[in-house]
C-alpha cells in the first residue's frame, strides 16, 4: 500500500469531474399516440356523479306499416334506447425533487420534469384507450396468411372480411378520401375506416396485396406521421405500444390485436377541468427543512365502446415469428 505525500502532479492528482453540459438535452423517447385518434370526445360536468351515460335510440322497424283503408292504425312501436355507461377514473404521477437537484443541476431540470409529466399524461391516456380496445371488442383471427399459424399473418382477405362486417352493420367511414393528383406513381385513397396496428406488423403490412404505402398517397399534406399504409377501406396507424399478447398463438407466438373501426365506435370522456392538471408542491410544504419539492400531473378519463357494431378487428401473428 502506498500513501500520498501531499505532493500532487498530473500522475496522481484526481482530476475534476470532466463533464460539461451540452447546450441541449437529448430527446426523450415517445411512442406513437394512436389510440385516442378517431374516438369521440365527450365531456363530463362536475358535481353530477362519476358515471357518464351516452344513449342511443335504436332505429324503428321497417316491417309492415301499410294502411289498408279500414281506419285501423298499424301497431305503434315502442322505441328502444341503449345506454352506454362509463366510469370516470383519475390517474396521477409525481416526481419528488430534492433541493440539491434544483440548486446544483442546470436550470432545465424543473422544466424538463414538467415536460416529462406532460408526456406521461398523454402516453398513459393512449394506453388506457388501447386497453379498452383490446379487452372489450370482438376480434377474428386472421386465416388468409401463409405462416401456418392460428391466427395467421394478415392478408387482404382478412381485411376485406372486417370491411364486410362493418359495412354490413352500417358503419360509416371516418377519413375522407384523398383525391388523385397528377403526381407520378400516386393514386387516390378513398374514404376509409381506421385500423391500429403494432409496429411489429409493418413488414407484413407491406406485403398485403393491394397495399398503398403512405409514400404513394397523392398528397402528404395533413397526413399524420403515425400513418403507415392503406389497405382496402382501411388506413393503418402504427405504434410500438399497440396491443399484443405474447406466446398464445397456436404455435406459441405473439398475437397482435388490430382494432378496426368507423365513426362513433368508441368514446373518450374527459372530466371538465381535469383533462390535464400539472402542479408543483414547494419544498416548505412537505418538509421542516424544506428539502423536497414535488411536481405532479393528473387527469381524469372514462372510456367506452359506444357502438359494438361499428368496431371489429383482427388478431394476427407475424409472418416471421416475433
Amino acid at each position, binding site marked *: 500500500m502506498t500513501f500520498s505525500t501531499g505532493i500532487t502532479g498530473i500522475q496522481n492528482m484526481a482530476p475534476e469531474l470532466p463533464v460539461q453540459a451540452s447546450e441541449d438535452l437529448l430527446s426523450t423517447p415517445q411512442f406513437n399516440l394512436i389510440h385516442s385518434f378517431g374516438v369521440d370526445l365527450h365531456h363530463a360536468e362536475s358535481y353530477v356523479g362519476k358515471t357518464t351515460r351516452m344513449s342511443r335510440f*335504436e332505429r324503428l322497424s321497417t316491417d309492415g306499416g301499410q294502411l289498408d283503408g279500414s281506419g285501423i292504425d298499424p301497431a305503434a312501436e315502442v322505441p328502444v334506447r341503449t345506454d352506454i355507461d362509463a366510469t370516470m377514473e383519475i390517474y396521477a404521477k409525481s416526481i419528488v425533487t430534492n433541493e440539491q437537484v434544483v440548486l446544483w443541476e442546470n436550470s432545465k431540470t424543473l422544466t424538463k420534469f414538467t415536460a416529462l409529466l406532460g408526456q406521461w399524461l398523454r402516453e398513459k391516456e393512449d394506453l388506457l384507450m388501447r386497453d379498452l380496445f383490446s379487452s372489450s371488442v*370482438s376480434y377474428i383471427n386472421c386465416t388468409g396468411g401463409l405462416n401456418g399459424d392460428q391466427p*395467421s399473418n394478415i392478408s387482404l382477405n382478412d381485411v376485406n372480411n372486417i370491411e364486410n362486417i362493418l359495412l354490413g352493420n352500417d358503419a360509416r367511414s371516418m377519413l375522407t378520401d384523398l383525391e388523385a393528383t397528377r403526381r407520378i406513381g400516386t393514386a387516390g385513397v378513398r374514404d376509409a375506416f381506421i385500423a391500429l396496428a403494432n409496429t411489429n406488423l409493418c413488414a407484413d403490412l407491406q406485403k398485403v396485396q393491394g397495399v398503398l404505402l403512405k409514400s404513394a398517397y397523392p398528397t402528404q399534406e395533413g397526413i399524420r406521421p403515425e400513418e403507415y399504409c392503406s389497405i382496402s377501406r382501411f388506413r393503418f396507424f402504427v405504434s410500438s405500444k399497440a396491443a399484443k399478447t405474447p406466446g398464445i398463438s*397456436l404455435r*406459441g407466438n405473439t398475437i397482435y390485436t388490430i382494432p378496426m373501426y368507423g365513426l362513433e365506435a368508441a368514446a373518450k370522456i374527459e372530466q371538465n377541468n381535469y383533462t390535464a392538471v400539472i402542479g408543483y408542491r414547494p419544498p416548505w410544504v412537505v418538509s421542516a427543512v424544506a428539502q423536497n419539492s414535488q411536481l405532479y400531473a393528473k387527469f381524469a378519463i372514462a372510456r367506452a365502446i359506444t357502438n359494438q357494431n361499428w368496431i371489429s378487428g383482427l388478431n394476427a401473428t407475424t409472418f416471421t415469428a416475433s
Partner: protein
Amino acid sequence: MAFTLVTQGTFTQPATAVNQIIPLPSGADYFVTTNLTQMATTQGTGRVVRGEWYGGGLFADNDGLRWKKTNSSSAINIDKFSTSTASNGFTYVRTYPNPEAALTGTTITAANPAVATVTNTYSEGDTVVIYNAVGMQQISGMTFTISSVSSAGFSLVGLDASAFTTPATAFSVRRVATAARVKPQFYYVTSVTHAAQAVVTLSQAHDYVVGQAIEFMVPGSFGMVQLNNYYQGQSKPVIITAVGTYTITVNLNTSGYTAFAMPASSGSPTTQLFATVAPAGQQATFNPITNVTTGYNFTSVPFRSGLFIPYMYVYSGDQSPGGSASDVIAYQAYKMETGTINGSP
C-alpha cells in the same frame, strides 16, 4: 422520511381457498399479512401465521418472509417462502401481467365438461389460455376459467367437448390475468342452444348481468351466423335475460337458426376463429308504479378498469400468506411518504 400506512383490511377465505388480489393505490414498500384464524390454533403440520414482503427488489416474485408455527406447537420459525420446503408467497404486480410460462399437458377429454391433464400449481378460478391442443385445435388460443383444480389437472366447465371428434393428446397452457384490462370484457362462446330464448355458454365465468346489451361475432365456421348483428332485422343489440356462472340467456329466438357447433380441429389453422360476444351497453326498464328499475347493475355495466394496478398477489395455502379454507387474514401495506423504495410504483 415518513412511512405511511396506505391500506389495510381483512379477507376471509372461502371453503376452497383462492389467491387474493389486494389493490395498492400508491404502491407499497412493505406489506404484511397475519392469519388471525391460525394464530389461535396448533396444527400437526404447522401453519404460516404471518407473512412479510419488503420492497426495493429484496424479494423475487412469489417470495417474502414466512413466520411459521412449528408442528404441533406455537414456536415460530422464520425463513423465506422460497426456502426448502418452498411454498407460495407474495408477488408485487406493477404492470398488467403477461401470460405466465407455458406448461405442457397430456390430454383434454372430449367430455362435458372437458378435463385437462397437466402438472400445475394453478388455483381454483384461475384464468388460462390453452393453445396448440393437438386434436382439439378449435380451442387453441381460447381463454378458460378452470375449476376442480388439482396438481394433476383441472376442469373446463365452460367447454362441452362431448361432440368433438377427438380428445386433445397434447397441449400447452399459460395462466393469464384473471381480469381483463377493461370491464365489461368480451368472452368466447362455446355453445348456443336452439330455443325461444337461447342459452349461450361462455368459456369463462363471466360478470355479465341481466339487462346488459351484447353483440355477437360468429364466423361462418361456427354455423349460427344469424347471431351476428347484420343478420338481425332491426340491428338492435341482444339483451341478456338471465345469467349463470358460465351461461347467459338472451332475448333471441334461435329456433330457426343454423345449429351452433365448434368447428373441427382439422380445420385449423385456416378455419376462422372464434365465436365471441362483447358488451354493448344496457337496456334498463323502470316501473313508475313500483319505482323499481330492473336490468341494471351499476357496478358491473359501466366501462371501467378491470384490474387496479399495482396490486399485491397473495397466494393461498397452509404454508402461504393467504391462508387456507375459512381463514381470516388481516393485511397492511406501507409506503414511504414521498417517493418509494421501489423507484416506481
